[in-house]
């Protein structure tokens, strides 16, 4: 079983602050996805990173895939209250047919 450890589990910050969420594993993944879940909804895909060392930017969100394809990070610059939610990383195995989720990071951005 491939495990993904996410940290921190909970994060409460003020609007305007920066934050980083980490997703770590001892296993190699073919690709890694980040999802965001809002209350009462299912997770929605934010980004997929495929190549080791890849960096993708989505407005104020920066996603990085580790060189060895075992870890990833999500950095949010100048957080806004609308960023509040549950952030989940998910690794796709080398066969491409299994999606394993990390434990999630619950982010609260206060005004």
């Amino acid at each position, binding site marked *: 079983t491939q495990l993904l450890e996410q940290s921190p589990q909970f994060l409460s910050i003020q609007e305007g602050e920066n934050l980083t969420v980490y997703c770590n594993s001892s296993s190699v993944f*073919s690709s890694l996805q980040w*999802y965001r879940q809002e209350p009462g*909804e*299912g*997770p929605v*895909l934010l980004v997929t990173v495929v190549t080791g060392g890849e960096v993708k930017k989505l407005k104020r969100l920066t996603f990085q895939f580790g060189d060895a394809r075992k870890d990833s990070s999500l950095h949010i610059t100048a957080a806004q209250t609308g960023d509040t939610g549950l952030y989940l990383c998910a690794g796709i195995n080398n066969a491409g047919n299994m999606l*394993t989720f990390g*434990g999630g990071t619950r982010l609260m951005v206060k005004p």
Partner: protein
Amino acid sequence: GEEVAQTPKHLVRGEGQKAKLYCAPIKGHSYVFWYQQVLKNEFKFLISFQNENVFDETGMPKERFSAKCLPNSPCSLEIQATKLEDSAVYFCASSQWGEVGVTEAFFGQGTRLTVV
């Protein structure tokens, strides 16, 4: 359909009763995944299907849980003799197969099961 449809949205069962959850994946998606979300955070994998075939069921407590994805029918997840610890939100997701594997997982809104 263009979205994953899960029914019912809420389900309440007495301990020991049966619960059956349904999921209609997006048309054309060949992979279906079931996850259990407890305490509003962790997504625990239960089972996946490739079309109507069980692909991976390593997360299923097999003595009480079963699932099917039959042609021309919604997929289903059934829990026989529910226990209090089965209370959770159950999510279904479907995905296409891309160049190197499953692509984006599209999730339904979940079924909240409460066992009392």
